[in-house]
């Protein structure tokens, strides 16, 4: 998994509660990404980061926020979880500048009841 860990790996929460997912990398890669994966859809980009405190929205960013205060950590927060946010969330990193290949973490399975 290219030195990427995600926590928690599984979470069950209730509608309306805040949830934070953590992505941690050990190799100081500049670019980090959060995706969600749902049946019938390809991976969809939520947010990405191109450096500490530098983030931008992806195609499905509504209801999500991110923070990156250290190179190694990229946090995804659901401010008030909804059932439509039940999904599998993947973190990814880009290895080298100009090398667009992304490597993925093991995923977090989130169930919002």
């Amino acid at each position: 998994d290219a030195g990427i860990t995600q926590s928690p790996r599984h979470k069950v929460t209730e509608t309306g509660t805040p949830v934070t997912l953590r992505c941690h990398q050990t190799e100081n890669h500049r670019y980090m990404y959060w995706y969600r994966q749902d049946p019938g859809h390809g991976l969809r980009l939520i947010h990405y980061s191109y450096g500490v405190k530098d983030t931008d929205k992806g195609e499905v960013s509504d209801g999500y926020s991110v923070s990156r205060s250290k190179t190694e950590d990229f946090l995804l927060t659901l401010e008030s979880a909804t059932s439509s946010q039940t999904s599998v969330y993947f973190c990814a990193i880009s290895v080298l500048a100009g090398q667009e290949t992304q490597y993925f973490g093991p995923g977090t399975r989130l169930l919002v009841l």
Partner: protein
Amino acid sequence: GESVGLHLPTLSVQEGDNSIINCAYSNSASDYFIWYKQESGKGPQFIIDIRSNMDKRQGQRVTVLLNKTVKHLSLQIAATQPGDSAVYFCAEHVGDSSYKLIFGSGTRLLVRP
């Protein structure tokens, strides 16, 4: 394991046969393409990539073919093994300054013993 895609197209092959998985991409400006493999309950795993200035690239037991005229990408797996059973999807990078990838929804490969 989880359902990566409940309605994915499925390719069923006999162990030892060759597999060909296809992908149509959307943007003629895409300049880089990646194939990923995803096993149940795991994150996507990089298999092979190809740049738009090439039409073929080979790896170990895998070959990627790129036809820019019809915007088509294929992954060939030689001597398919049970461990190749997974969901395979392609990703394209559009040739701008962004590091974002666009992912296909995937094909499920089943290998019959």
